């Protein structure tokens, strides 16, 4: 085994990040205690839709410890632009003006109306109770499908409609005369992301007019650009730091009111301002995910060849357009056909406003929604055809790559048969089916079912030109810098911003592999715009596919310059040098060698460099991906359903994923474990429940069922590997695969468990009540 095999790309290196986190030395925002800090508490609307008739702040201002109270009108002139939406998906997309505090009308329960600034959190909370807001309550729009209808209540009267946009993508004509057509409508309810660390912000004004903003964010770079724009301040005067961040899952991929408020108020008061979100506040004021109603149709020949797909999606935007709210449905728009070759393809998205928390990216963002309806409908189609559900999938798998799919994108690589074959090797389907039959035969109250999901998805966001073509406001590149320090260590600066994904470890492995050092000799810096001025941060499973590729490109530049230095020093032609794992050797003279570290020292002393060469060995690369990243795989869920109570429990979960080259299998497995869990949670447990007035009925962790270890089994994972051909070392994204694949596998399993009772459909989450009712209705 060569040295690099033990800790380079592919090695299960234990994480460098763990030590401080295990010892209680995390640097989460709430741990920051700056001298002179005042605490901000947001007064939020208890109503989902209301006009503000008056706000009386006199009593609050007089309360103990209170420094200031600001309302929406008080701060209106602080905003040089409305809160940003970076993805106007159509030219005529409708977007209401949205400010960090509501100025005259509140549009969801939790919409901010005032802030109280006090010396302590307790004083601020107490005084917030004294802010007296009078409201005139309006009818609320909650139901997504109803919101899209004409003639109902409008969330934003001034827009004249609840429809923000209609976005179609069409290729070919739906075969209305096909042998078989199946059509089904699916509800995917809103979800609360629930990162265990709530959001938090500290803004500190600096003596020269700069502001330092610490935020529990996934996107310090994007936050800097848009905070500066919203406040009309120089971007160069704003430094954003993402310290240790306690999970995100998309919910911290945004520009939030509290971030803007903290900066604005810190500038006004000249003192650090801190805001820490409470959990019940998080349920209201941090974005939700999903909330789609989708009708999917598949047309097929009698022998199971799918010829057409049509999807009609109504997606809730919530009350306002946050950073990329309208684009979330579009992130799935190209993959409604999943891993299947379907020639005629049409999808249409209608984005609608409702009086609910704004939606935005939640793990998978658009792709779980697409995969769920497809994989559910594949089972329905198999049933309609009288064909085995796996045979139907196999008959339609894309098998030749690169594959240009009907939606217009090109999948660079994949092998869906291989993943499914591997899945069946692990699953023991025959025994499971025998067990299922035995339980059916004896009328067991506990029935078992097996559900499948085969998938591909597009991640690794994203090629800048494509983003431009679909009207996203920024690019999708990433940057990395490698500095070869004179003493033989390496400093890496990355524009990615990890919050649990282990970039410090994985990036060290990439550098170690490429430049021939130990990972412990690599220091990875991230999450601070003063040390990484450019970057586009972490979301959409982009960090390794894009940021890792940028790092690799920087390494290639290092090797290129080092080669010139070594050739000069050894007095040979650069063409005569061979390079492997950090060491240059001279062809034919194996005793003559020099390392990258040696070249770094030579570049530092600069005593003997080629004419005209700049001293120091350092390189920056910016990588714009040529394509999206296309992981894929096959998952199976085994559930046990108590037909008496309706309780569905997952008893096994087998996942085969193809994520191309794996840098660190420990980290990859961890991503898959976590992703699967959020998909299972979607299928069985989680749903943000609104009543008809738009009150969030389960906005605490006591009411909203984030699953614990007790609800879940251990997982069975394996991988197949088809290397990404559009990536320098073959890697694909992995952060969202589990979430994308899991929910349909689980629901398909629940339905399979009950199919002999006549159950064909259960809405997510498959709560005991829903399962019990489905059984009762099927029996009637």
């Amino acid at each position, binding site marked *: 085994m060569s040295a690099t095999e033990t800790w380079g790309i592919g090695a299960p290196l234990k994480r460098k990040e763990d030590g401080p986190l*295990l010892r209680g030395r*995390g640097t989460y925002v709430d741990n920051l205690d700056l001298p002179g800090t005042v605490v901000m508490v947001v007064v939020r609307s208890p109503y989902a839709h209301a006009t503000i008739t008056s706000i009386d702040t006199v009593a609050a201002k007089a309360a103990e410890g209170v420094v200031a109270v600001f309302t929406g009108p008080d701060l209106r002139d602080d905003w040089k632009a409305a809160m940003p939406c970076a993805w106007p998906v159509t030219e005529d997309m409708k977007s209401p003006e949205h400010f960090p505090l509501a100025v005259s009308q509140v549009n969801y329960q939790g919409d901010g109306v005032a802030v109280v600034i006090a010396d302590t959190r307790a004083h601020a909370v107490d005084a917030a109770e004294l802010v007296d807001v009078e409201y005139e309550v309006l009818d609320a729009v909650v139901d997504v499908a109803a919101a899209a209808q004409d003639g109902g209540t409008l969330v934003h009267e001034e827009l004249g409609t609840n429809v923000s946009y209609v976005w179609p993508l069409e290729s070919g004509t739906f075969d209305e005369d096909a042998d078989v057509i199946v059509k089904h409508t699916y509800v995917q309810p809103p979800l609360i992301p629930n990162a*265990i660390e709530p959001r938090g912000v500290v803004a500190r004004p600096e003596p020269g007019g700069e502001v330092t903003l610490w935020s529990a964010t996934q996107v310090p770079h994007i936050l800097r650009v848009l905070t500066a724009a919203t406040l009309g301040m120089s971007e160069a005067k704003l430094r954003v730091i993402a310290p*240790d961040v*306690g999970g995100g899952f998309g919910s911290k991929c945004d520009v939030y009111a509290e971030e803007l408020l903290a900066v604005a108020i810190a500038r006004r008061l000249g003192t650090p301002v801190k805001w820490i979100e409470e959990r019940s506040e998080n349920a209201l004021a941090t974005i939700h995910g999903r909330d789609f109603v989708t009708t999917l149709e598949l047309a097929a020949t009698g022998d199971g060849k799918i010829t057409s797909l049509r999807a009609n999606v109504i997606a809730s935007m919530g009350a306002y357009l946050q950073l990329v709210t309208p684009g979330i449905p579009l992130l799935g728009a190209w993959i409604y056909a999943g891993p299947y070759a379907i020639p005629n393809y049409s999808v249409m998205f209608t984005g609608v406003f409702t009086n609910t928390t704004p939606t935005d990216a939640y793990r998978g963002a658009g792709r779980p929604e697409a995969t769920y309806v497809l994989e559910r409908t594949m089972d329905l189609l198999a049933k309609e055809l009288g064909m085995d559900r796996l045979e139907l999938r196999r008959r339609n798998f894309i098998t030749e790559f690169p594959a240009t799919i009907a939606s217009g994108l090109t999948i660079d690589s994949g092998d869906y048969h291989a993943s499914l074959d591997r899945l069946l090797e692990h699953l023991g389907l025959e025994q499971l089916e025998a067990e299922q039959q035995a339980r059916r035969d004896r009328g067991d109250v506990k029935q078992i079912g097996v559900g499948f999901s085969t998938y591909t998805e597009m991640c690794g966001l994203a090629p800048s030109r494509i983003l431009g073509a679909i009207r996203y406001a920024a690019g999708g590149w990433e940057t990395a810098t490698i500095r070869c320090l004179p003493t033989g260590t390496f400093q890496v600066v990355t524009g990615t911003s990890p919050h649990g994904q282990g970039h410090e470890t994985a990036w060290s492995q990439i550098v170690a592999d490429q430049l021939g050092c130990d990972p412990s000799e690599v220091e990875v810096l991230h999450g601070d715009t003063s040390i990484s001025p450019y970057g586009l941060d972490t979301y959409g499973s982009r960090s390794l596919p894009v940021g890792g590729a940028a790092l690799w490109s920087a390494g290639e530049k290092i090797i290129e310059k080092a080669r010139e230095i070594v050739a000069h020093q050894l007095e040979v032609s650069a063409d005569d040098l061979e390079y492997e794992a950090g060491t240059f050797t001279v062809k034919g003279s194996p005793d003559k060698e020099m390392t990258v570290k040696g070249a770094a020292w030579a570049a530092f002393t600069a005593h003997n460099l080629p004419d005209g060469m700049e001293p120091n060995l350092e390189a920056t690369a910016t990588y714009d991906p040529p394509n999206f990243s296309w992981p894929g795989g096959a998952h199976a869920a085994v559930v046990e359903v108590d037909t008496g109570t309706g309780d569905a429990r997952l008893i096994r979960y087998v996942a085969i994923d193809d994520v191309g080259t794996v840098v660190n299998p420990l980290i990859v497995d961890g991503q898959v474990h976590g992703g699967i869990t959020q998909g299972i949670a979607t299928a069985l447990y989680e749903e943000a429940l609104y009543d008809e007035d738009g009150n969030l009925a389960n906005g605490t*962790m006591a009411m909203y069922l984030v699953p*614990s*270890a007790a609800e879940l089994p*251990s997982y069975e994972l394996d991988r197949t590997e088809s290397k990404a051909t559009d990536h320098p070392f073959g890697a694909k994204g992995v952060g969202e695969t*589990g979430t994308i694949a899991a929910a349909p596998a689980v629901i398909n399993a629940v339905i399979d468990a009950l199919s002999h009772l006549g159950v064909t459909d259960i809405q997510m989450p498959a709560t005991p009540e829903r399962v019990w009712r489905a059984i009762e209705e099927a029996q009637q």
Partner: protein
Amino acid sequence: MYRVVLTVNGVHRELEVEPRDLLVHVLREHLSLTGTNVGCDTSSCGACTVLLDGQSVKSCTILGVQADGATIITIEGLAADGELHPVQQAFHDHHALQCGYCTPGMVMAAVSLIGNGEATDRAAIRAGLEGNLCRCTGYHNIVEAIAEVAGSTS
């Protein structure tokens, strides 16, 4: 204000606390022991779990004044002489943490579970962790880490 005497991570502490201060606030704000995290406001997530007289408790469920006289160990006090506690080491070895926010509470709950002889097998470990939520790991590797320390075979 009330006077409270605590032994925290082996150090004798005498503090003036407000009656409404939760133990987690006493630890974080009075003693600057910020390793103990707050993740919810309903005693659901377990991020704030510490050992109080040897047993795991959610430090948001008791008031500082109620803890008067108690011996408390937080995540900062678990690694003796700088060496990771076996549970911390197992979490590292098994990649049982990602963002790390639930980790201090999860580790303290695991120490208590193992100490009480309740980590007999993976099913028991899962049941015993019911009060600690993690959003990153899916619990798989946390269960593996605890099973290793507890010597669980199934």
